[in-house]
């Protein structure tokens, strides 16, 4: 099986090189047979990588410790499911997965559009093949998961216990689907630049793929946050760690892209901007892979450090030089078809949205590479921590939320005063009402007040849109529910987007509440003693110990009381893993979480003493569940948006009806 795996990877590499050459040669000389054979080659690469992945999975599941990768990431006591997920627990396996996902996407692109555009598609394929060559090359020649050890260990090192978690099992996978997904819109952009076919085609494909990648990046980020929250035991879900930023930066750029692409689609504007954005997004996605994989920026996440750093840097330099070179070469073909009329228009709201997203991406980028930058310039290693990221990003985020309310409702071209009043009066009143109510309830934090009122504003605008659209249909005699579902299903992109916005609002509410209003307390308690926290009372009933095959666990039994009434029992744990092997991490603090929509009680057993007392740390994090709920809503909205439409109704979605457009009809254009 092992030989099968390494040979498959080698063949996949050779065929990828062939795909690149054949597609370019075919389109240059108009020998379409070559293009066709390149396309078949891409399918063959997919099959070869599937074989290689199956071979590695086979070794992982059967614990073939003669393979370095298997010995480092599994052990005999590892549950079957985690043997499977070890595929992406280490460096070489993750890179193989990268290649596999890219080859799946390439095959889909080939199958979907092989007969679409003869000029554009070969170049798209060539770009995808170039990226494949780089990654498959690394797996084949530098970081092979099929590398053998000079001896056969009796036991593997095993999987880090904090990675043995359902969220960690799927979080890297979703993130990879997103990271790699960014390659496809980039390839379409490159294809358009090289072929000179800079019309609507590339933008239409890019938009869909970018949305797809964006959705997976979002899911990946949220799952990662949830994992950090449950496993890392410091009470938060986001720490502005370089590895988190690595995934956040392409997300920011991709968010800008999926918005600005609409302006190009509808108005033929922002062509240069969109092209640059997709290049930047792809750059950030590769850069993200680079910083997580090279260990160049120290992170608390213990990823593998290896010597693939220089290779990545070379590849990144090549991408940037080549793509911006092509961009300059075609710059005259990227002239805009329309110009901006007014600063009070949907176009300009989108421009501001883009500038802010890019500004945030830049700030995060700068903060992430600051240690390297400062060391290069001044010789001193200087860090900027979470306070920097919060200070820069919170104001940007607040303005973005405001724009999220404005963008969908304001008219195209130029908004009249009448239009503004009509669309925004009620949402603004709702925002003001929110502030008043919160003030009455005693909320004093300015950032939280602004954030919540902006959330109310956005919610107001979205509901206005749903309400108006549904009312138009009910007036035609449809019942409310039918009108509502038809409204959404006939304008999936528009209303799906609104649902995503509602998801974001929920996330923002959760993030605001849980970062501004945390209550934290630590106390050392003897059995029978209790601690007060807000309206809760936590009683420590004593320690309890138990042993399983894998670990010695100590539990602190706690009883939660509210207003004198017992409402729950809670048991945070501290585990000592009994390894036969030599694993570096053998201690694990298992957080006890009591989660409701109102707040999370986050309880950590910090330490315990021989006299039976225990040091307990408790946090009350309000509204954290809103973040995860918002994530579900976001995914729902993204699915609605991407749901395939028959081509006739897609036309309707394009012409789409807009309340604001009726107020201010576009003069004959």
């Amino acid at each position, binding site marked *: 099986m092992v030989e099968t795996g390494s040979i498959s990877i080698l063949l996949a590499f050779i065929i990828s090189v062939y795909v690149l050459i054949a597609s370019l040669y075919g389109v240059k000389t108009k020998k379409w047979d070559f293009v066709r054979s390149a396309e078949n080659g891409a399918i063959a690469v997919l099959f070869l990588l599937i074989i290689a992945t199956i071979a590695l999975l086979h070794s992982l599941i059967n614990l073939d410790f003669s393979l370095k990768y298997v*010995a480092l990431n599994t052990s005999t006591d590892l549950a079957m499911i985690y043997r499977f997920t070890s595929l992406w627990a280490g460096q070489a396996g993750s890179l193989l997965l990268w290649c596999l996902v890219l080859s799946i996407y390439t095959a889909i692109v080939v199958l979907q559009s092989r007969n679409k555009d003869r000029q554009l598609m070969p170049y798209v394929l060539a770009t995808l093949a170039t990226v494949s060559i780089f990654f498959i090359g690394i797996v084949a020649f530098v970081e092979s998961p099929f590398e053998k050890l000079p001896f056969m260990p*009796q*036991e593997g090192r095993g999987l880090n216990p904090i990675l043995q978690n359902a969220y960690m099992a799927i979080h890297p996978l979703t993130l990879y689907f997103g990271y790699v997904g960014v390659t496809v819109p980039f390839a379409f952009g490159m294809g358009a630049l090289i072929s000179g076919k800079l019309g609507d085609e590339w933008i239409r494909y890019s938009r869909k793929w970018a949305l797809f990648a964006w959705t997976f990046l979002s899911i990946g980020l949220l799952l990662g946050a949830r994992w950090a929250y449950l496993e890392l035991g410091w009470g938060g879900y986001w720490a502005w760690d370089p590895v988190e930023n690595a995934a956040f930066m392409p997300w920011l750029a991709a968010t800008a892209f999926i918005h600005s692409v609409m302006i190009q689609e509808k108005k033929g504007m922002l062509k240069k901007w969109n092209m640059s954005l997709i290049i930047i997004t792809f750059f950030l996605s590769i850069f993200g892979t680079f910083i997580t994989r090279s260990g160049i920026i120290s992170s608390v996440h213990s990823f*593998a450090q290896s010597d693939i750093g220089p290779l990545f840097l070379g590849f990144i330099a090549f991408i940037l030089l080549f793509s911006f070179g092509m961009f300059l070469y075609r710059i005259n073909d990227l002239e805009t078809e329309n110009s901006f009329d007014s*600063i009070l228009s949907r176009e300009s709201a989108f421009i*501001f949205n883009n500038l802010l997203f890019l500004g945030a991406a830049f700030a995060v980028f700068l903060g992430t590479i600051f240690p390297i930058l400062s060391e290069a310039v001044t010789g001193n290693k200087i860090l*900027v921590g979470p306070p920097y990221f919060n200070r820069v990003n919170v104001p940007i985020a607040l303005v973005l939320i405001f724009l999220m309310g404005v963008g969908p409702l304001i008219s195209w071209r130029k908004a009249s005063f009448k239009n503004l009043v009509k669309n925004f009066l009620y949402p603004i009143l709702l925002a003001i009402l929110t502030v008043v109510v919160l003030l009455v309830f005693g909320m004093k934090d300015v950032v939280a007040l602004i954030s919540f009122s902006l959330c109310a504003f956005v919610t107001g605008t979205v509901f206005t849109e749903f309400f108006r659209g549904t009312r138009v249909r009910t007036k035609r005699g449809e019942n409310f529910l039918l009108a509502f579902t038809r409204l959404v299903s006939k304008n999936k992109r528009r209303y799906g987007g609104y649902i995503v916005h509602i998801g974001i609002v929920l996330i923002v509410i959760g993030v605001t509440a849980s970062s501004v209003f945390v209550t934290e307390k630590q106390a050392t308690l003897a059995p029978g003693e209790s601690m007060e926290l807000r309206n809760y009372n936590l009683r420590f009933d004593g320690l309890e110990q138990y042993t399983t095959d894998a670990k010695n666990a100590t539990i602190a039994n706690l009883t939660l009381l509210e207003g004198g009434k017992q409402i729950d029992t809670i048991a945070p744990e501290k585990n000592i893993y009994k390894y036969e092997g030599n*694993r570096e991490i053998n201690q694990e603090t298992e957080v006890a979480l009591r989660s409701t929509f109102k707040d999370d009680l986050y309880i950590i057993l910090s330490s315990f003493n021989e006299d039976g007392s225990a040091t307990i740390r408790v946090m009350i994090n309000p509204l954290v569940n809103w973040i995860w709920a918002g994530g579900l809503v976001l995914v729902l909205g993204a699915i609605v948006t991407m749901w395939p439409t028959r081509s006739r109704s897609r036309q309707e979605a394009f012409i789409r009806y807009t309340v604001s457009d009726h107020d201010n009809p576009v003069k004959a254009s």
Partner: protein
Amino acid sequence: MLKGKLKFIIAIAVIALTVSYLVYGGVKDTMVYYLTVEELKAQVPTVYDSRVRVSGMVVPGTIMKDTNGALEFQITDGTQTIDVAYEGIVPDIFADDVEAVVEGVYAKNDVFEADTLLAKCPTKYESTDSLYENKETSY
């Protein structure tokens, strides 16, 4: 038309300047020097009372934990050693010989008062050393 363009340029400039200002102010107010133990010692006494981040290996046998969860230990870069006092959440992998990263203030009594403690694995994550050790014990 020209007036419209001008408004745009002003608006864009305002955004760019605001972001730059936020970045500049953020860096200026939150930046922290990342030092080795030796560099920290070399900067005494100017380093006193300013916020720094220091990394070093935890000296084996120096970790002392009182019943309230407060922690004292020493870190070293091989030549110099400093005392560290910390109270808060202790990472699971924190132990003798791991690389600890602490952030806080070096007080005049030469104790580093840390409010952040991070720990890194002592060896490279993908080192095969442990497998060799394992091999020896199993034969």
